[in-house]
């Protein structure tokens, strides 16, 4: 693949993140469902990793993690490493074990979200500022409401992949 084509491809993928970012950052927090709003950025990383493989997934995770940490309030800098790892593992799992399809993406997204929720729960338990039942009462609706968005976000990236994904521009 030529450098120009590569840049073109990843520019399109980056532009695709913009509406997801704005939805997650500025729109959905205003309209919570069951008291929570979804977290869409890990799903974007999982979708790209599923379609493009582990190295591209890790790179996309790194960029998305940086965006998340630097623009959102109260997001730990560990998310940079966590989303990179998510991209790497999702890409590897879908490439070598599962399938590079919506089903592989759904399974891996569920796993990624589960890890996110577990880390939140463990963090607050460590600080001893909350009881397990309250933490679970936040984590479960957040997980479910976020998971619902996996398919639409995968569809966005799949449509892009069909146009510019893989080595199509070569």
């Amino acid at each position: 693949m030529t450098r120009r084509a590569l840049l073109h491809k990843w520019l399109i993928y980056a532009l695709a993140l913009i509406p997801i970012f704005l939805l997650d950052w500025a729109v959905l927090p205003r309209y919570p469902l069951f008291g929570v709003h979804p977290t869409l950025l890990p799903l974007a990383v999982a979708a790209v990793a599923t379609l493009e493989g582990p190295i591209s997934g890790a790179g996309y995770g790194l960029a998305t993690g940086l965006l998340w940490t630097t623009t959102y309030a109260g997001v730990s800098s560990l998310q940079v490493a966590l989303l990179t790892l998510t991209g790497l593992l999702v890409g590897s799992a879908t490439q070598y074990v599962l399938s590079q399809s919506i089903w592989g993406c759904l399974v891996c997204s569920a796993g990624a979200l589960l890890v996110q929720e577990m880390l939140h729960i463990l963090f607050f338990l460590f600080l001893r500022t909350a009881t397990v039942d309250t933490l679970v009462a936040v984590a479960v609706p957040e997980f479910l409401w976020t998971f619902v968005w996996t398919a639409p976000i995968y569809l966005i990236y799949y449509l892009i992949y069909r146009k510019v994904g893989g080595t199509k521009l070569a």
Partner: protein
Amino acid sequence: MKDFFRNNGGLLLVIALLLSLLLGITSVFLSGTTDPISNVMTAVTAPFRNGVSAALAWAEGAYEYVFHYEQLHQELSDLKQQVADLEEALRDAEDATRENEQLRALLGLQEKHRDFVFEAVRVSSPSTSNWESTITISKGSAAGIEAGDCVVTETGALVGIVSQVSYSTSVVSTVINTDIEMGGMVSRTYSAGVLEGDFNLMQEGLLRLSYLSDGAQLVAGDEVVTSGMGEIYPSGFVVGRVEAVFSDPSGMTRYAVIQPAVDFSDLIEVFVIKEFSIEN
């Protein structure tokens, strides 16, 4: 395993870990101020956030006008009645103030003088996390806002404390957030305690007034204000009303559950207290 990571993005993972560490260490040292990268990202993305907020606010206003006109009309009538009642209370208060001044002069007491420097800001967005209660406001260090500044509404109700400042925006921890801790007191009886956020209560939109003494006098409905103890935060700002009083698990102290005076989902414009002085 080593080959697996080398061939599948292991280097990127190492870079990500180093970046995480760098950002983490920077945030610890800067404490309350955002790191340079976040400053740049926030400055670049702030116009988009403000644009989306403005568009949503317009759309919500239009929706309210079209579908809730009767409700808005009734709310207007109620507010007009409230204004009339408050004007009458103000006239009574002016009489009381004059009498207070005369008595102070008679007894040789000096008046307490309160000076505040306010900065009006718009609320850009509500909390982007389900695990904390924060709002983002439209001004930052460029407007002289610093971490630790109080944020209030136009009616003097406390919204929260500025927890993080970037060049053009700031993050405010609301009064129900878990990192809040300040002196509070019941305005009717002057019973003092510590206003604290609590994760369990935060999910219900509440906070607590802890470390109440055994002799503290308060009942449901009592108004709670900031006490200004330690002179870190100004006194007299309304935090909320007592919902219920409980005994601490240790049985040594009591605490009250407080319903905040502010509806955080309804905020459009608030005021940051950049400086204050309370002198005798």
